[in-house]
Each structure stands twice: as structure tokens, then as C-alpha cells.
């Protein structure tokens, strides 16, 4: 017996069959229930856990159809249009779903209909019913009005008006119903009978192509998994070849027999349909997982989904050495990215800004075609490097001394407990921060060279003025 709290009193949220036989019902105040049956085993409701469980079920139902949604508090909706034949027809699918979910320990009621509200109503009141396509009205006729997805007040009003079953409601004119119960109610009826459509949104983006393999006996060993992945990759590769497409992003889903689902994503820098290459990268990825793939009692479904495909170039330009070099480097990048992660394999783009730390930005190497990115060349020929080789992400504060305000560089400075005497300096290069960041002062950058020859990039944070008598100095970078 699960008790929930509403309006500051406890009521029964769910109960076992035996309790039901005693005359207790869902929604009954707990006090009454205890009066009727003193020896009750009551646990408090935990909505969060229930919701999490439902979410897990939704993930698991992905094996039947990608269009799955949770229907809180305790329902699931699957859109099986076009998928029923994969399971041997609607009746077979209904039995399979009911049986599989029941095998996990749930009490299941399921139904199939042409619209979501109709299916929901039938599942609650006429389980295992399959409404004929387009003929929801027939199936729904005998259901009580409480099966309608409407406000309680409206249902009470329907009863008071003498409309006890959905069939009686259907017999009335639309205008009458709209006048008495509101246009919203009539709209809901429209959806119920399929006059208007409200489709289900898929939870995850739908793949372009998919290949899956089901196992009557769940597989556990690494070899079996690898063999399955290879054959799936090959069939996917064949379809891609027929359509002249290549893979950019692949998702491998592993469905465990006990309900858990694990998904691994693989990205490629350039479109490819080489099954061996994809397999090797996938193996790399699987080896490097923080949380290794655990089959538990076995996987009973393995699926490869091509999430993003692109037109692939023809594979017969292998004798062109540039092309070959480029594709080899691309494969190397894919391999490094699979091993170390996207954020660690970077190439650079140039941004149009004077803020030095934002000028060149590192971006994952698979992201775009970097060869086409424009880069302005060095500032002027015969000029020394004007930007440092290293930049500290957080400029380090230094103690600078003996600079000549307003525009002079320091004569010496202390940094990281060492003292550096400045032999030469050039500057200031005045770089203002973004105008909308009013609290960030303008920086005056100086290239300095110490007596020993070390070259640094310093800046003074802010200009000298009546208010700012002691601006701070920072070391931003180290030149080559």
C-alpha cells in the first residue's frame, strides 16, 4: 500500500489486489482505510523515484519504436505506425510488449488505437483491445466518460447532464457540447476521434539509417558483441554505398535483457562508409570508456544508428597523394578523438577581435573543414613577432617598479619570486576591452626584453588618471 499526500491529508495512491478485495480503493483517505483494515502495511509515495523508473522504461521501450513518451504518472505511449510488421503484426506486438513488461514485474494493461487519447482510454478500461484503424468510435462507445482526458469538473458536469458513456457524448451535436462544456472540450474530442492530429514527439533525434540485431539468447562475450557490431557496420555500409552517402555520426545502442540501455556515440571528421574503419574506431572508444560496457545478463538487442550522413566522395582517388594524405590525417584525428575525447584534439580558427586571448580559438578537430579557414598572415614582414607564443589564461599579477607614467614600461619587475630587469621595452600597445564591459579597463601592452634575453608581454591594467594612481601590472604571455 502506498500512501501519498494531497491537501494536507494522506490518501491511498496505490494498492495491492488483496487490499482491493477488502473494499479499499485508490484515492480513499488513509484514515478511512485504516479504520476498515487496521493491519495495513503502508509506504509513502516517492514521486521522484517513480518518475525515474518511468523514464528508464521509456528508454527500454526504444527497442520497439523510437517514438516513445512517458504518460505520467504510470503510463507509456508508443507510436508504432509502420513498426508493427517488424514484430509480426499488431496483435503479436501487443502481446510481446505486455509480456516483456510483465516479465519485469509490472502489472500491465495495454491497447492499440489510432490516436493517443483513444489508446490511453482503451488501455485503462479495455485492456488488450486493438481498435480498428479509423474506427475508434466503435471501440470507445461503451467506455464511461471518466475515460476521457478532461477536467474532473467537466466529467462531473457530463454525468449531471445524463451522459454516462462516450457513446452518448458522441451522439450529441458539436455545437451543443461546445455551448455547455466549452470549445476546449470539443477540441479534445476531435483529437480523440482522430479528426485532428497531435503527433508524438520522438525523445531523441531520429536516425537516417539503422541496422539492428536481436538475440534470442542474450549475448555476453566480447567476441560475440564485436562480431555483431561488425556485421551491423557492414550492412549499414552497404546501404550507405547504395545511396552514395557516408557516415559522420554513429550511435551504437546496447539493450540489456534486464532493461538497461547504453549508448555510445562516435564521430568522424569526414564522411566514411568503410565498415572496418568504423569498427576500429568503435573498438577504441569502447576500450577507453570510463565506465566499461557491462553486459549484465546479456544484450538482447544491438543497434547501430547513422545519426548524421553526408554525401561521400568517391573512393577511387586513392592514387592522388594529397587526397590520400588528407584522408590518412583525418583517420588519425578520428582515432585520437576516439581515444582522448573531442575537447582534447584541437585545431585553431582566428576570430575577428583585438582581445588577445580571444584571437585564436581551439575547436575540436572534427568539427569543420579547417583547411578552408582564413588566417591573416603575420603583421608585417621584417617585424619581430608581435604576439607571444604562450599566453596565460589567467594573466599573472606582477610587482612592477619604476615605470614612467603615463606611458612607460617598468624598469624591473618581480614575478613568481624572481626579479627581472628590463633592458628594452616597446609599447604601449593600447587594447581596449569590449565597450559593453564597463568595469574592464583598457590595457597598455608592452613587449619587454630582460637583460638575459627573456622576452615577455606585460600589460598595465587601466590608464593613469586622477582616480587610478596605482594600476596593477600583469604578465600575460611569453614570447618565443
Amino acid at each position, binding site marked *: 500500500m502506498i500512501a501519498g499526500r494531497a491537501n494536507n491529508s494522506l490518501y491511498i495512491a496505490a494498492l495491492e489486489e488483496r487490499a482491493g478485495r477488502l473494499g479499499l480503493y485508490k484515492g480513499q483517505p488513509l484514515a478511512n482505510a485504516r479504520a476498515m483494515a487496521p493491519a495495513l502495511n503502508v509506504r509513502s509515495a516517492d514521486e521522484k523515484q517513480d518518475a525515474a523508473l518511468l523514464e528508464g522504461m521509456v528508454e527500454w521501450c526504444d527497442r520497439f519504436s523510437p517514438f516513445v513518451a512517458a504518460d505520467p504518472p504510470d503510463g507509456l505511449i508508443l507510436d508504432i505506425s509502420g513498426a508493427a510488421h517488424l514484430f509480426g503484426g499488431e496483435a503479436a506486438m501487443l502481446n510481446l510488449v505486455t509480456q516483456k513488461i510483465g516479465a519485469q514485474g509490472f502489472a500491465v494493461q495495454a491497447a492499440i488505437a489510432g490516436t493517443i487519447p483513444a489508446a490511453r482510454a482503451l488501455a485503462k478500461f479495455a485492456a488488450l483491445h486493438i481498435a480498428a484503424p479509423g474506427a475508434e468510435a466503435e471501440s470507445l462507445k461503451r467506455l464511461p466518460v471518466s475515460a476521457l482526458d478532461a477536467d474532473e469538473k467537466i466529467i462531473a458536469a457530463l454525468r449531471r447532464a445524463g451522459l454516462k458513456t462516450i457513446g452518448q457524448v458522441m451522439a450529441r451535436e458539436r455545437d451543443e457540447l461546445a455551448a455547455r462544456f466549452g470549445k476546449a472540450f470539443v477540441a479534445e474530442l476531435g483529437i480523440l476521434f482522430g479528426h485532428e492530429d497531435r503527433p508524438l514527439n520522438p525523445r531523441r533525434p531520429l536516425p537516417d539509417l539503422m541496422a539492428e540485431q536481436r538475440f534470442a539468447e542474450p549475448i555476453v562475450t566480447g567476441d560475440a558483441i564485436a562480431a555483431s557490431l561488425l556485421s551491423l557496420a557492414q550492412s549499414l555500409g552497404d546501404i550507405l554505398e547504395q545511396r552514395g552517402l557516408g557516415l559522420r555520426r554513429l550511435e551504437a545502442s546496447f539493450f540489456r535483457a534486464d532493461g538497461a540501455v547504453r549508448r555510445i556515440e562516435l564521430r568522424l571528421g569526414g564522411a566514411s562508409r568503410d565498415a572496418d574503419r568504423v569498427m576500429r574506431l568503435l573498438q577504441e572508444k569502447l576500450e577507453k570508456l570510463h565506465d566499461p560496457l557491462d553486459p549484465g545478463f546479456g544484450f538482447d538487442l544491438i543497434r547501430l544508428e547513422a545519426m548524421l550522413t553526408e554525401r561521400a566522395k568517391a573512393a577511387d582517388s586513392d592514387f592522388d597523394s594529397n587526397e590520400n594524405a588528407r584522408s590518412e590525417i583525418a583517420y*588519425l584525428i578520428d582515432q585520437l578523438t576516439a581515444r582522448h575525447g573531442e575537447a582534447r584534439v584541437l585545431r585553431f580558427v582566428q576570430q575577428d577581435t583585438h582581445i588577445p586571448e580571444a584571437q*585564436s580559438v581551439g575547436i575540436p578537430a572534427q568539427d569543420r573543414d579547417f583547411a578552408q579557414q582564413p588566417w591573416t598572415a603575420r603583421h608585417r614582414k621584417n617585424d619581430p613577432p608581435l604576439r607571444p607564443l604562450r599566453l596565460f589564461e589567467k594573466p599573472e599579477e606582477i610587482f612592477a617598479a619604476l615605470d614612467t607614467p603615463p606611458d612607460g614600461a617598468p624598469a624591473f619587475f618581480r614575478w613568481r619570486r624572481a626579479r627581472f630587469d628590463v633592458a628594452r621595452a616597446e609599447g604601449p600597445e593600447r587594447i581596449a576591452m569590449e565597450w559593453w564591459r564597463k568595469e574592464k579597463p583598457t590595457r597598455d601592452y608592452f613587449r619587454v626584453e630582460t637583460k638575459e634575453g627573456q622576452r615577455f608581454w606585460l600589460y598595465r591594467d587601466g590608464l593613469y588618471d586622477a582616480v587610478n594612481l596605482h594600476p596593477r601590472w600583469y604578465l600575460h604571455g611569453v614570447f618565443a
Partner: protein
Amino acid sequence: MHDLRHFLARYGLPPDRPILPLGVADADAALGGGLNSGALHEVYAQDWAAGGFAACLAIRLAGRKPFFWVRPDYEALEYGALNAQGLVELGLDARNLFLIRTANAAGALAAANDILSCPHAGIVLLELCGEPKALDPVASRRLNFIAAEKGVSVLLLHEGAADQPSAAQTRWRVTCAPSGDGEWGFPAYRAELIRNRLGPSGSWTMTWNPDDGLFRESGRAAHAPHPGALVAAASYRPVEKERRFAF
């Protein structure tokens, strides 16, 4: 069929391992013409800006081929993040630049080995700090061997470390030098070739010219180079005893 094409593309052409002169006549003579590509070289940087010498050598060795800079995350905290604009200022085409950041030195070494297996890479610059355990003589011999086999150059940049025996073809100990009179601001270094498999050692003061991608001998070798780290304000600690410098 695909394997055959691959094999031909990789081995059909004669191995391309040019010798790249640095631009300073004496140094090139000692090196036997220039720096060998497809080999392991090491640079021990003794002060702040000396790491740039490795970058310049790497730009020379890479040519137009892809340039891979591999560094553990810790380097960015201690020595600063890599600024692609700075490498452009030294003469590199940033479109050839790849940065691999790894969690630790062992990961960096593994990544370097991975990159070396692709013969189309130009150079791997592996930046390490201190003396990582992962880099033992076996590992460095392996790097040299794979570099020679695939024709990819490897440059190890050690910061804050004392030099150690390894399988490198050339080993340099570098400090900064003040830039020459007419060339204020150009990267100038006092580079000591402490180990050279193909010839004698020596030391030269070189300035890098970003426009033509070569060094030239700088006239000014003003101060005699300090024997060790130019660091501690209070107490000067000799190089060999310290595990890593506080610079």
C-alpha cells in the same frame, strides 16, 4: 584492394627524409648539413623563453606538413597555454597546426606514438615538464625507431629538467639570448648542442627569422650564459640536484 593501395601509397615512393639546414653555417656543418627529419631530437629549455627554440626547430622540420603539438594539461598551468597566433608570428601556417592536450605525461607519450604511426604527419612536438617516469630510455628509443621508419620527425621539449641520456639524434640545451642591435625583439637563443650523433658538439647564438623560416647567427653574444637556472631570487639552487625548477 584497399590494402594494396594503401601499401603502394606508403611504400611505393622513396622515403622522403630531407636534411634541413638551420641557416647558421657552423651549426649546419656540425650537424652534417642540417637537422635530420624523421628522427628524434631533444631540446632542454633552461629558462622562460627558451621553449620557443623548440617551436622554431619544429617549424623548420615540419615544412608544409601537419604540425602536432602534444602537451599534458599541466603545462598550460605552469608555462602558459599555446597561442596559435604566436606560432603564426613565428612563420607557421596555422591551418597545419593540431594541438593534443592529454591528462598526463603517459597519455602524451601514447598520443605521440599514435601520431608517429601516420607517415603523413610532419612533426610531433612533445612538450613535457620535469622528468616523467613514462619517458624512459626504452620509450625514447622506440620514438626514434618509429620516427625513422615512418619519416616523421619528433621533437621533445623538456622544461625545467636536467638533461638525461636518451636515444635522441641531437640534444640541445637552450637559454635565451638578448636580441641583436638591429633586431630587437626577434627570437634569439644561445643554443648548445650537447650531444650530436653525427658530428661534434658546439654552441652558437642564433636568431630566428620568421619570414624565411631560418636561423641566422647573431652577432651579439653579450653575456656569458649562466650555468644554470636563472630563477630563484633568494637562494640559487644548482641545476642537477633539483627535480624541477621554480621558473
